[in-house]
């Protein structure tokens, strides 16, 4: 069986680890010892769209894990630098795959070692109920493409492995069109949700009057599309159409940045909106509305330092 190490066992990491454990030899690299122990002793339960409990290895020290052929770095973008640092100097034959929001994750990982890298972007979502129980909510796909030193065939290999475990996955010759579609979508939907408190619902597509939120959503997406055009990246999907479709699905999705804000946790705005703004500045494309959103989110984070 293929040996896979999933680094980070939040929602996304837990969904990967549990599903893959049914078709591969899976280990989880986690930060807390009690988390590792609980996973070893109780296994990892999935509910929602699937219902099973997987057995897997788990440790806080990478040297206690079998050398993997595939490493999935499934931590939050904020933790990526630290997690990649923990495996630095190890597992030279492994292919390392990123699935973080935003763009630029591959470069962060590349600084820590010479691994071959696959670039991923995931749309699946879930809810974490405990260290050993994750609910699988949205069965949308993970997209994978070649990055440093990897080939489209290796992207297909990883996608096939993930698909065989019961998750949705698709390989691409070039991931950037998909990655940018998601970046523009995320930079817009996450920040609007985080500032208003609204889940991703019909308000986001409402353009019936000038003050309706859909106008802002569309304007933010138009700014993002202009950046993608300037970067020479054709988008795989139109973010506005993704938005309209998603809000018609019925059950409103709770974007992660809204969850972060409600829990008063630092958000990923630097990696999502920040990534888009940095690209825009580099290319000389004006993005005043994204800058406004970024400023407001950063200021909201600052308000928690008070009192």
């Amino acid at each position: 069986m293929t040996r896979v190490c999933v680094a980070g066992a939040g929602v996304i990491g837990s969904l990967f680890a549990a599903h893959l454990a049914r078709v591969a030899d899976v280990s989880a690299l986690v930060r807390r010892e009690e988390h590792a122990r609980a996973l070893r002793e109780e296994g990892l339960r999935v509910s929602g769209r699937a219902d099973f409990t997987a057995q897997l290895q788990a440790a806080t020290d990478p040297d206690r894990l079998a050398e993997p052929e595939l490493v999935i770095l499934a931590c939050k973008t904020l933790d990526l630098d630290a997690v990649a640092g923990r495996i630095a100097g190890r597992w030279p034959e492994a292919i390392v795959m990123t699935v973080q929001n935003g763009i630029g994750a591959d470069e962060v990982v590349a600084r820590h070692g010479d691994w071959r890298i696959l670039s991923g972007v995931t749309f699946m979502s879930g809810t974490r109920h405990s260290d050993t129980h994750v609910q699988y909510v949205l069965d949308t796909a993970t997209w994978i493409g070649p990055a440093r030193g990897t080939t489209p065939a290796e992207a297909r290999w990883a996608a096939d492995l993930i698909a065989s475990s019961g998750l949705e996955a698709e390989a691409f010759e070039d991931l950037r069109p998909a990655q940018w579609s998601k970046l523009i979508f995320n930079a817009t939907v996450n920040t609007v949700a985080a500032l208003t408190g609204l889940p991703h619902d019909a308000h986001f597509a409402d353009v019936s009057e000038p003050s309706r939120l859909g106008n802002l959503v569309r304007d933010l997406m138009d700014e993002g599309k202009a950046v993608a055009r300037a970067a020479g990246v054709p988008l795989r999907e139109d973010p506005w159409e993704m938005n309209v479709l998603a809000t018609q699905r019925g059950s409103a999705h709770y974007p992660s940045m809204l969850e972060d804000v409600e829990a008063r946790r630092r958000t990923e705005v630097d990696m999502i909106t920040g990534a888009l703004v940095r690209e825009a500045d580099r290319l000389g494309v004006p993005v005043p509305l994204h800058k406004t959103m970024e400023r407001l989110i950063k200021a909201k984070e600052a308000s928690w330092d008070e009192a």
Partner: protein
Amino acid sequence: MKVCVVGCGAVGSLFAANLATLEDVEVWAYDLAQEHVDAINRDGLRLTGAGEVVGRPRATTDAAELPSCDFGIVATKAMHTEPAIRATAHAFSNGCVATVQNGIGNEEVLAAHVERVIRGTTFPAGKITAPGIVQWDVKGDTTFGPFEERPAPFAEVERLAEACTRGGMPAKAVEDARGPQWRKVIFNAATNPLGALTGLTHGRVCEQPPLRRLASQLVDEGKAVAAAQGIELDADPEELIDYAARPEVAYGHKASMLQDIEARRQTEVDYLNGGIAEFGRKLGVPTPAHDSIWALVKGVEAAWQQQ
């Protein structure tokens, strides 16, 4: 002289209590909060803080009790103007009605119900701490002028300003009162929603350079809309913003819109950013920052309705 204050919240109470100290002015206070009205009739209307005043206006929740008045001073929240003036218009069939409310567009609403309207802008602020008791936080000037479309005679505007000044609320009568009004609405629209969306006090909004720049962007758009109407601001809102950020002025002040959001009360955003955006649209002046902020605050209000 008979004056009726319509809407006896914090600002209305400042006018009612101060005017009621004058022997030659009979003051009525119309308000829907029964407890507040009962306390005023029982114990008088007490101001503490920036000034210590006990006035004895006659308070009522029943508009039918109001006598024919020389002046009305409308001080409701902007979204309550229409029902408030509809209920009380009969008392002003021979009088003039002034607004001291926030935002723009209130005069137009009054003019649909009464003949002689006075455009007004006031800077004092406070809050009701208990029925019949108002904390007077900030002293400040009031400017009155005839409302161009349905003007009160200038002599009447002067008579009201003179009474307010003698009562302890310094006021002046001017031919064109739009300058102070737009200065205030631009100031409020550039600062209030930033506090409301981020949770920061006025001083902390100004300390964050990116956020302070966003305030300037909002100010610049507001100035362009004012200039397109030939309005000369009587002072620069930028200076007002920096002045208010001083520790001894309003550094720790939570904008009224932030107080509204924390209490989940409908905000006045439609009359602040929405007012500027709507005037901009009519005049062909783009206001992208106000449009965005307007949509975000409306989104916050929409989020409450779902919970």
